[in-house]
């Protein structure tokens, strides 16, 4: 199995996951009490039997399930995720408008988490059992135990309310109308609190994983070989230990991205970051089910695409994929 066929298999997997997400969504709609027609009618404040019937006919709800499923799949494939009840706009348009903000925040958080986590993990793994190592273990346990939204609120309380160092809300300063670099700088300052809050949890998992991987790899025979060759400790750590320890970290980044998106919903809400996460909250409070479902589909597809990217990166980092792992 060479690298290309490995990537091919992963591509197929991504497509299959996307199909599964759409299928799942179709059945999730059926989970809600009452069908779309009752909900629509309820929204209109008007429900007579004939009107309901015409609504059902209009939305194809009177047709067999398989026909409805087929229609649903073709609609989703064509980018039609339905209309938002509340906004009366196509769901996809509403989401795409907010998506760049969420991507920006998540990319920043991922970067901070990976860089910080790997550095912390390396420091802890240098001498297992040392004070650095022990305090890092305790610290990451504490981060694991904190609700992420609460961590955000505490950060806001300290850095915005008490110290006044950082802006507590939003993407940029309202009404300041910065342009160019000044605007970018303004957004960057606004991104620090939500970005770092979102990153901290993953930084903790990354630090732990890096530590475990480094310690595990450091016990392998080839590290002994490297030392027996008379290579400096720095090169042993970089080329032999870290290089091998990074391989599982790549896959991990892909898997973590799903959890990152979940965290993003909460953190965006705390900091009123105008992204998909706050949109999800709005959808919940206004009972805008098509919008909520649309958010699930879009984020799921994005995460599986990101996993495809990490899978490809993994196949480059680990030559052993040929063996069909």
């Amino acid at each position: 199995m060479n690298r290309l066929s490995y990537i091919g298999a992963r591509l197929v997997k991504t497509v299959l996951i996307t199909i599964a997400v759409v299928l799942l969504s179709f059945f999730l709609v059926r989970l809600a009490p009452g069908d779309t027609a009752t909900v629509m009618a309820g929204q209109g404040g008007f429900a007579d039997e004939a009107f309901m019937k015409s609504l059902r006919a209009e939305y194809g709800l009177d047709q067999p399930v398989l026909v409805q499923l087929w229609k649903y799949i073709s609609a989703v494939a064509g980018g039609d995720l339905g209309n938002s009840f509340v906004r009366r706009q196509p769901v996809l348009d509403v989401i795409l408008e907010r998506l760049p903000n969420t991507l920006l925040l998540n990319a920043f958080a991922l970067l901070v988490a990976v860089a910080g986590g790997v550095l912390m993990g390396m420091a802890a793994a240098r001498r297992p059992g040392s004070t650095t190592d022990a305090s890092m273990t305790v610290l990451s346990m504490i981060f694991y135990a904190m609700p992420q939204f609460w961590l955000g609120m505490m950060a806001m309380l300290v850095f915005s309310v008490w110290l006044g160092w950082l802006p507590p809300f939003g993407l940029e300063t309202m009404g300041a109308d910065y342009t160019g670099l000044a605007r970018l700088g303004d957004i960057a300052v606004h991104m620090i609190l939500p970005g770092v809050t979102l990153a901290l949890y993953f930084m903790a998992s990354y630090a732990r994983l890096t530590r475990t991987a480094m310690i595990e790899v450091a016990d392998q025979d080839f590290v002994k070989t490297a030392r027996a060759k008379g290579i400096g400790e720095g090169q042993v750590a970089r080329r032999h230990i870290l290089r091998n320890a990074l391989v599982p970290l790549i896959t991990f980044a892909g898997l973590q991205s799903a959890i990152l998106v979940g965290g993003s919903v909460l953190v965006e809400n705390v900091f009123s970051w105008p992204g998909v996460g706050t949109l999800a909250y709005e959808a919940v409070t206004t009972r805008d089910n098509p919008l909520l479902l649309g958010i699930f589909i879009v984020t799921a597809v994005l995460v599986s695409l990101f996993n495809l990217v990490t899978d490809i990166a993994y196949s480059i980092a680990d030559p052993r994929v040929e063996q069909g792992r």
Partner: protein
Amino acid sequence: MKDFLRVFFSRPIPLVGLVIFAVIVALALLAPLLFGRGPFIIVGMPLLPPGAPGLLAGSDVLGRDMAVGLAYGARISLLVGITSTLCAVGIGVLLGAVAGYYGGWLDDLLMRVTEFFQIIPSFVLLMVLVAFLQPSLSSTVIGIALVTWPQVARVVRGEFLSLRGREFVQAARTLGMRDARIIFTQVLPNALPPIIVVGSMMVGSAILTESALSFLGLGDPNLLSWGSMIGGSRSAMWVAWWTTVLPGLAIMITVLALNFIGDGLNDALNPRRRR
């Protein structure tokens, strides 16, 4: 068992975890006896600070006793954490064991399903589930169990798969033991330690998930939980820090205690540490 207890208590961390957890469980169980009137009763002025007369933890935006809320909140957190984990572990062990031991198409299917759950953003799915089912205690528990059982199934399946290949299990087959007997006497006892460790960690993360759902207004509207206390006090955070800080600390301490216990279990059940 003796070895297990010796290792478990050989470090302070699991012991601390166990003591804290016992206190929280006691508080949750005794809440109706201590504060019989329930958490929704208004007892005084809103936003009184902790230490105000009769108010150990202050009052919230509506003038309700925060201390009572915290005690009742523990009931919800523990109830959701434990029941959803039990459901998830039940489903996960059953499916994981069958898939890992027998392999074949069932195993393939299970692996695809667990991969699917690993890749989709499960918190967003959970929001959809709970919103569509209507927020309630049972939809929270069902939702959490539905998105977390694949984790357990993966672990169990991996253990069963590797144990199935071990020579002592093969020996049991050559001795003519029936499958059920092999699974229960040979494989399961050896697969239990990781299941217990994963389970203990899952209780903590289920508590966190429940608090996030209630924070977003997706909790049971008839019950007061730590997450909904924080969510309800967001506007007051700027003037009354205790309304958000205290319930958050309660969540953190509970989850931390559970993770400490899990850490101790991990050590004590790890055969490499026992010799």
